[in-house]
């Protein structure tokens, strides 16, 4: 795929990967073997019919490919860009055993972008029922749930605390990876399905989840408020000026547009030397944003090795190309004070890998006497997040011991009619997993309301229930409201 030159793109916020042209997509689609056992499909958390949509591309029937994709995935342009494909669909691809796997993500993005350009939307015939559904949080989990409930005929309202919808897609992931125009296009499609968005609404504080059901007339509620609450390292110097979480840096830059300061009011002063702690997607984003805001040197500090870095392979590669300096097996022990309350550097210790721990990754252990200092005036922590506490503070939802919402396998919570999914249930995960959770919850919500689930594929699982053919049962529309 064509990409912007690393030296040029490290100075702008234009998209790095330019995407396929139709010819590229056709060529790539040739490489798919149409494997009968479809290993790739088992690698996709939502089970997209991958060979199916690739075959349509190959027939130059892009609209057909779009139809197949949107059967299962609401946001192909987004997933095609930011799924960690190497661990998911592409990781299982047969071709990948000997050659580069089929570029499933890029093909998916091509189809999604083509649809946006052409203005295709698949709006099914929707027969309105009288159910009211409330969705809390407008991230991928909330959006996916909203779409399914709207298609089922419900009156759906999405409540979002920020002044713009989109969740992490908007405030976290930068434009050069996922342009805002793509997110906005997908949100517009939701609006076409009849979904209403209410921004500037902090659920829990403005009204509680219980009130949504008892006073506001919602028949069922989905909670997808994300994880959020960033972890600090807990080392000396954590609160010095110039130490901040990646979430703060990214929110200031992406949502609040600090990169256009002072035309936009929110500032994000950039350091000359920036040290980012962590090696996940959030860390990569923070590093690459720092470069674009004018940092001269950007270091990545990670206590394990390159192999264990949790970021998408493509992001790591892009960050390397753009000139980020990686320091593997390095762990921070203190942030250094310039005497005036500002960070002037970070003291680290070298690590070596010991025996594998519970997660199966080799446990890093400090090498005695190996302390050394980095000079840095901006220090960014990207070491993970905890559960956002607001839902727990304001409702009787049962939480697990880490503060995440406790949900059963159908994503029902301890409150009747309230379902939850995405990062607030599983802890930080991926966009497609959050969307999968949103759809799974939607299926449970439909069952809870007793409305026919048109998304249930016929013949999936049991064919007969109580001696009645499931296909037939699916045609019966049960109405309880």
């Amino acid at each position, binding site marked *: 795929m064509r990409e912007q030159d690393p030296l040029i793109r490290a100075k702008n916020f234009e998209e790095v990967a330019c995407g396929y042209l139709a010819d590229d997509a056709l060529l790539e689609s040739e490489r798919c073997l149409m494997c009968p056992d479809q290993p790739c499909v088992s690698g996709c958390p939502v089970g997209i019919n991958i060979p199916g949509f690739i075959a349509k591309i190959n027939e130059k029937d892009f609209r057909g490919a779009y139809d197949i994709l949107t059967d299962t995935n609401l946001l192909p342009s987004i997933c095609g860009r930011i799924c960690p494909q190497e661990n998911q669909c592409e990781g299982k691809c047969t071709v990948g055993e000997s050659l580069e796997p089929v570029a499933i993500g890029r093909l998916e993005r091509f189809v999604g972008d083509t649809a946006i350009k052409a203005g295709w939307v698949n709006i099914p015939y929707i027969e309105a029922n009288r159910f009211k559904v409330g969705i809390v949080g407008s991230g991928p989990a909330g959006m996916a749930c909203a779409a399914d409930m709207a298609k089922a005929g419900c009156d759906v309202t999405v409540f979002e605390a920020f002044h713009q919808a989109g969740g992490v897609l908007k405030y976290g992931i930068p434009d050069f990876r996922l342009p805002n125009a793509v997110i906005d296009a997908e949100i517009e499609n939701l609006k076409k399905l009849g979904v209403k968005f209410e921004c500037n609404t902090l659920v829990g504080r403005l009204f509680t989840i219980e009130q949504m059901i008892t006073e506001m007339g919602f028949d069922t509620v989905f909670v997808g408020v994300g994880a959020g609450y*960033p972890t600090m390292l807990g080392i000396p110097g954590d609160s010095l000026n110039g130490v*901040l979480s990646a979430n703060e840096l990214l929110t200031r830059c992406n949502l609040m547009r600090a990169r256009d300061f002072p035309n936009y009011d929110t500032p994000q002063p950039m350091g000359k030397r920036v040290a980012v702690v962590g090696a996940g997607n959030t860390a990569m984003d923070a590093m690459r944003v720092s470069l674009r805001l004018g940092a001269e040197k950007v270091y990545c500090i990670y206590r394990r090795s390159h192999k264990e870095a949790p970021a998408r392979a493509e992001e790591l590669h892009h960050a390397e190309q753009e000139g980020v300096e990686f320091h593997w097996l390095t762990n921070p022990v203190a942030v250094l004070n310039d005497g005036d309350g500002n960070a002037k550097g970070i003291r680290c210790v070298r690590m070596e890998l010991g025996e594998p721990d519970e997660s199966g990754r080799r446990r890093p252990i400090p090498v005695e006497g190996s302390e050394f200092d980095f000079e840095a005036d901006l220090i960014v922590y990207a070491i993970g997040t905890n559960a956002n506490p607001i839902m727990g503070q304001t409702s009787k939802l049962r939480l697990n011991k880490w503060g995440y919402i406790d949900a059963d396998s159908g994503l029902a919570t301890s409150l009747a009619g309230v379902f939850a999914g995405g990062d607030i249930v599983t802890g930080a995960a991926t966009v497609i997993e959050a969307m999968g959770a949103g759809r799974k919850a939607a299926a449970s919500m439909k069952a809870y309301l007793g409305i026919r689930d048109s998304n249930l594929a016929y013949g999936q699982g049991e064919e007969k229930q109580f001696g009645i053919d499931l296909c037939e049962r699916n045609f019966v529309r049960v109405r309880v409201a």
Partner: protein
Amino acid sequence: MSNFEIVTREDFSDVTYLLEVRHPLMAKAAKPGQFVIVMLSEQGERIPLTIADFDRAKGTITLVIQAVGKTTRQMQKECAVGTSLYAMVGPMGVPSSISHAKKVICVGGGLGVAPIYPQARAFKEAGAYVIGVVGFRNKGLVFWEDKFRAVCDEYIICTDDGSAGIKGLVTAGVTQAIDKHHDIDEVVAIGPLIMMKGCCDTTRPYAIKTMVSLNPLMVDGTGMCGGCRVKIGNHVKFACVDGPDFDGHQVDFHDLIMRLRRYTKEERIAMDHWEESCRLQKSIDRKVDSATSA
């Protein structure tokens, strides 16, 4: 839930002004000690402001604002009755716990005078004996005296120059009240950090529980960015979701004061940039005027 219309505006002085904003749901939900985050325009910054009062019947909340920098001054200039804010979200933060204290001192200084009012009123409604202590630079800046007197059993005004009430800082008023009453259960202080620190230092020898409302810099106000983190004893807390009220004797004020200075340079740039655009706009207006009148 859009359209946050300004229905009343009052100017207490050339730096302090009041805005009453329509938001029926928020008026219903708001409790003392909570705050909102406001954006004046799409390009604006998100700034936290305490809910100084709320009127459930009218469906409005009241903000009292001190013009200290770019955003608060631009709001002072642009927020007329009938205009709308671009965004307002809340009520945020854990409501103040109105304890069963029988005798309390409610202290407000500077931008803390307005937000201490709903707390004083709530204590009064809970049956406490309320001593109000408020500080201003001079007599000309005093506001809401009637409102306070209506909910306070005793009311002490302190001014820097002695032009109203007693001469001195609010800590002088607090000391005076403690000397007079030996059974104070709780002190609640809201205002500039240095003032809240002063109050805590005053009450510490008497071991009187002292609650303060912290005002670190904030971005989202939902616990997502960590920008508002404060040190409370040995713990790091996020003021927007764990606070903003904390036990003042546990707060690391030094740390917080250093952190508030983080963006001094950028605040200056934003201010200059805005003033420059105001000047340009004026000169354009003048040119248009002279062109049209010619």
